[in-house]
């Protein structure tokens, strides 16, 4: 077992009150698992990813534990997290395109970064060159400024830097969304390659594009408005989802070969709730066609089949009767 998150609750402190961005989430990621994390914008997926590595104000830890390789992470303590960051847990941030210092050459910037972690740059250089080769970047990128690189190159460079110290857990936040389809495929496949070569033990891939996750991830976790909705192996999420939100979300995606003239797809009516004063109970009930009285209580996130977790009273109810 690599990562275990228990009842993690994160609020954003604002002048108008707390934004309930993440409400008692519990899940685990096994060794070598690439877990996809998907949902609409504002559902808390980035909050979840960032809080594991860099929990800083206005983010506030309300409760919960994060256990990585049998060791509890002091995620609320910026100072004590330092030994873990980069070595144990590493993040490729959403703004990776702009994550590099524009006034430093890539090589110098990497050296400074390593020095801040008390790692010798010279000794790491062969590994760095090997990794550059793996992501198909020429060695001379180390002598280049970020402005000289294309978006896909920068994204791959940030991936190399983030995984340089072989972290246990890599969090990749929207690494493919700003790229063209061709580089998107290359970057996504490189991430799998990193895992296969054990450069990182397991990974969380945050994206809004479920079709990318179908290509690369082992399991998918669907979030809605700060709550977990469903987690299952990729094939089950895509082909046999149980949560009404997952079903509706998948129904909005045009499968290849579907044309408007032949089959009209439908969106999900309504909007996600504001999380400043979130609705009580299941947060999807306003848009859910199956909502009933029981949905006024928060549904628990329960394993209904092996590795298939779901938070929906309808599904839990039928399961209980069976």
């Amino acid at each position, binding site marked *: 077992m690599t990562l275990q998150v228990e009842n993690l609750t994160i609020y954003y402190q604002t002048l108008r009150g707390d934004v309930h961005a993440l409400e008692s989430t519990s899940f685990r990621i096994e060794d070598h698992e690439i877990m996809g994390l998907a949902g*609409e*914008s504002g559902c808390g997926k980035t909050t979840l990813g960032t809080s594991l590595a860099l929990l800083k104000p206005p983010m506030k830890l309300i409760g919960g534990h994060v256990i990585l390789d049998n060791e509890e992470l002091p995620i609320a303590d910026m100072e004590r997290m330092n030994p873990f960051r980069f070595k144990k847990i590493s993040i490729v941030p959403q703004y990776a395109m702009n994550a590099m210092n524009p006034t430093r050459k890539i090589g110098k910037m990497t050296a400074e970064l390593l020095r801040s972690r008390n790692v010798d740059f010279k000794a790491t250089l062969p590994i760095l060159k090997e990794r550059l080769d793996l992501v*198909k970047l*020429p060695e001379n990128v180390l002598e280049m400024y970020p402005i000289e690189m294309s*978006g*896909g190159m920068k994204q791959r460079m940030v991936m190399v830097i983030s995984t340089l110290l072989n972290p246990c857990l890599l969090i990749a936040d929207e690494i493919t969304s700003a790229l*063209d*389809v*061709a*580089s*998107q*495929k*290359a970057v*996504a*496949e490189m991430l799998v390659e990193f895992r296969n070569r054990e450069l990182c033990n397991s990974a969380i891939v945050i994206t*809004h*594009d*479920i*079709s*990318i996750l*179908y*290509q690369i991830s082992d399991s998918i976790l669907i979030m809605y408005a700060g709550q977990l909705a469903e987690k299952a192996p990729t094939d089950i999420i*895509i082909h046999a989802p149980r949560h009404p939100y997952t079903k*509706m*979300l*998948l129904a*909005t*995606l*045009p*499968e*290849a*070969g*579907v*044309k*408007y003239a032949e089959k*009209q*797809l*439908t*969106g*999900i009516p309504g*909007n996600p709730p504001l999380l400043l004063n979130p609705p009580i109970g299941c947060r999807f009930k306003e848009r859910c066609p199956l909502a009933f009285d029981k949905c006024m209580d928060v549904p628990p996130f329960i394993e209904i089949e092996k590795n298939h977790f779901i938070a929906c009273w309808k599904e839990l109810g039928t399961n209980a009767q069976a």
Partner: protein
Amino acid sequence: MLKLNGISKVYSVGAFGGKELHAVNDVSFDIGDREIVSLIGESGSGKSTIGKMILRLISVSSGSIFFDGVNVSNYKGAALKEYYRNVQGVFQDPFSSYNPIFKADRIFMFVKDEFFPQLNALEWNKKLNNSLEVVGLNPEHVLNKYPHQLSGGQLQRFLIARALLLDIKFLVADEIISMLDASTRIDVLNLLAELRARGLSVLFITHDLSLAHYISERAVILYRGCVVERGTTEKIFNNPQHPYTQMLIAAVPRLDKKWDKVEVDLNEKKLPEMTTGCVYYARCPLAEKACATKPVLLETESDHFVACSRYLNK
């Protein structure tokens, strides 16, 4: 309806503008009545530049644009304003299309002041409500609000409603759904199809091939400012003939099929002497000597054109 005849856009780049950059290079295609045509390409392929030239937001370096048989590529003043009654655009980012300190419906007032000064308030409100209902918005819910109070999907529909106020015949939709969430983007896409049924033609600029396939009858594939393949969407998707299109379609993440194990070659071979040849030469796995001359668009089957030298002899 709209016909592009060999249009190009050349920018001067480098110190003192000494070099030329061909953002769009000799592009021709046409869009018929009640037709949605997708313009597909990677970033930097010049697809937005073409949209902006049609909207006359930037000038055309060479070539001409015909709208209903009239050359509009050097319209100015009153004639251009008349043109805008027929042709309008909607752009990628709905959030930055509005001024955040004013209410969102200010965009409608501009249209009234410019194009319908003779209408009284009652007639105008009727027209506005009608237009909002066409795009599936309830006027009571969305009027009199600031941009931050509306969702991205609502703001994008607002912009489409603004375009519809003018009884337009042609809409340039430049990446209008790439910023929207999956749950709302399909509604905006369906809206385009409904508007087509009411007699609108649309140029749908996108980088997402599966959405292009869903909505459009014909597609144009652009690479580095040149058309590499065009034809009916069906034929392009089921039988892509240009190596670039084949690579694009293989790289699209799909829900019914995992990616093939073919690697994408991202690195361009450095071959400066080839600048006059095929635009895709540097990345093409099938490049050969014949590619040194620029291929022309050839019809390989009915309504399916490919610019690749491999098809020259056939």
